[in-house]
């Protein structure tokens, strides 16, 4: 036994080595390296040392701020909408109804499908002259919209509908970005439904029965039982959807433009800007600075939500 255990001293490293090598070489090293790269003028090859120069340029770059604003619009448009709709359907699915599995599978279909294919399909749905979206609008008597070609802010468009003229800066996200938001909510809904459903199924059924015997209606039991006991799941879904939304790229890359990010730069999001700097105009130092700013945003959101979650969330 003694001999064997001594011989085993080496073996943990042997088990860890394959994973360790890959994770160090392609996760840890690049992460550390990105700080280094961001301190240099780095086109195709490393150039002059700039210190914090890239970051200084970044905070004076209107395109960066614009793409950050567009990303925030995207996140604020996607996350609450997705949460509300998925919670709604999850509560419906949790009512012990027939064919629950079939509904769940249907809702999950877009989740499993590649974002690339889905982007193609939605671009076609949004086609300004031939698309199904405009056909449905015409069917209910609304005049066709430009969708992905429409740079006008959604609030401004809605204002026009009721005869109100809003200034451009109050226009909100462009209709093009709203179109991307709708598509993205559709794509991710099934995942959030499945997460909520798992959370709902963890709530003991006796609680609802007891509440019903005490004369509580469905809305009262939702507010007093479901909502508080579901809060760990809600926080998790909120966090994950927010983090994923901040990284929106594929649908922007494939559905907007040319040039990507159009019309009039209203759909240019931060990850696309990073991609453009890193791989289209080959400004790798600048792209790394953008990447690290994005990382700080995501990390602080994670930490903030973790802290809030610890304080407020009821763990049932």
């Amino acid at each position, binding site marked *: 036994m003694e001999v*064997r255990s001594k011989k085993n001293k080496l*073996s*943990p490293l042997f*088990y860890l080595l*394959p*994973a360790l090598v*890959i*994770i160090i070489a*392609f*996760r840890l*090293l*690049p992460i550390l*390296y990105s700080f280094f*790269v961001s301190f240099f003028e780095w086109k195709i090859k490393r150039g002059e040392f700039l210190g914090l120069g890239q970051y200084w340029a970044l905070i004076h770059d209107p395109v960066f701020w614009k793409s950050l604003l567009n990303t925030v619009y995207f996140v604020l448009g996607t996350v609450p909408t997705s949460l509300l709709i998925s919670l709604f*359907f999850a509560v*419906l699915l949790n*009512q012990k*109804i027939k064919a629950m*599995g079939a509904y769940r*599978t*249907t*809702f*999950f*279909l*877009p989740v*499993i*499908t*590649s*974002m*690339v*294919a*889905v982007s*193609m*399909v939605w671009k*076609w*749905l949004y086609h300004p002259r*031939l698309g*199904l979206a*405009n056909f449905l609008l*015409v069917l209910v008597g609304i005049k066709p919209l430009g969708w992905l070609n429409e740079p006008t802010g959604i609030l401004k468009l809605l204002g026009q509908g009721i005869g109100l003229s809003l200034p451009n800066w109050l226009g909100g996200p462009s209709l093009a970005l709203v179109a991307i938001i709708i598509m993205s909510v*559709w794509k991710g809904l*099934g995942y959030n439904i*499945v*997460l909520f459903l*798992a959370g709902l199924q963890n709530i003991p059924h006796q609680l*609802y029965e007891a509440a*019903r015997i005490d004369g509580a209606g469905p809305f009262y039991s939702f507010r007093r039982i479901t909502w508080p006991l579901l809060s760990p799941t809600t926080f*998790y879904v909120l966090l*994950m959807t927010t983090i994923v939304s901040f990284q929106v790229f*594929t649908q922007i890359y494939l559905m907007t433009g040319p040039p990507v990010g159009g019309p009039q730069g209203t759909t240019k999001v931060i990850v696309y800007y990073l991609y453009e700097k*890193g*791989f289209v105009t080959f400004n*790798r130092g600048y*792209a*790394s600075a953008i*990447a*690290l700013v*994005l*990382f700080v945003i995501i*990390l602080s959101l994670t930490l903030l939500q973790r802290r809030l979650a610890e304080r407020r969330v009821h763990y049932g």
Partner: protein
Amino acid sequence: MAKRPWSKLSIHLLLIGGGIAAITPFLWMISTSLKLPPEALKFPPGLLPHIPQWSNYLEAWREAPFARYFLNTIFVSGSVLVSVLFTSALAAFAFSWLEFKGREALFVGFLSMMMVPMVVYLVPAYIILYKLRWLDTYWALIIPWGANVFSIFLLRQHFKTIPRDLYDAAIIDGCSSFGFLWRVVLPLSKAVLVTVALFSLIGSWNSFMWPLVVTNSDKMRIIQVGLANFSQESGTRWTLLMAASTFCVAPLLLVFFFAQKRIISSFARSGLKG
């Protein structure tokens, strides 16, 4: 809660409405893929093709080297899958069964890698791949994804539920620790290994940004990048683009229909760790 029949009925109606919204884009994709080009350019559009044009699929398939894209994707996802199972099983075993100094600290270090999104290290990883001369090769598509923390985490969670007595008994009987992993732990972990495998396959099949960045020649393209590229070349030929989109999503949807329960419950459980 829902005793009265009308309330069950209204739940079903709402769910059917949601379900229709979920699948309409797919139906529209398939419908367009079977139309004649002039039919697709009609407004208001016809809901169904007059005569289904199955030849669109053949034509789209021949327009771009989709066979090559498929083979690349199958090769890459297969290699990533084998590698992920291998590296994760070994690492998870070390993290759950072997005693060594700094084990927990190292594991926390691994976990913290999970919080860093891919876009953060994409540019430096590209530079590293460039220095390795791996750009536009299979290596760049396979090796960086050959291990992932999430799989290690999932496997470790499961390995920890296996009773300690089994290990002690096996060691006393002269079984090596690798033998224990191979003959006892892995057979007891089939379900979670399948989960890891499914996540890996879905991830590889659908990955886009990484292969877009690290490959550029047509012969190295994987399916999603090939489809995106085809969309630029096909221009306004929507019938062909929809046909190509359909055959690019079909394999994974097929897997989904056979393993839907397992896939959905894997996704559901993966969320509960938070």
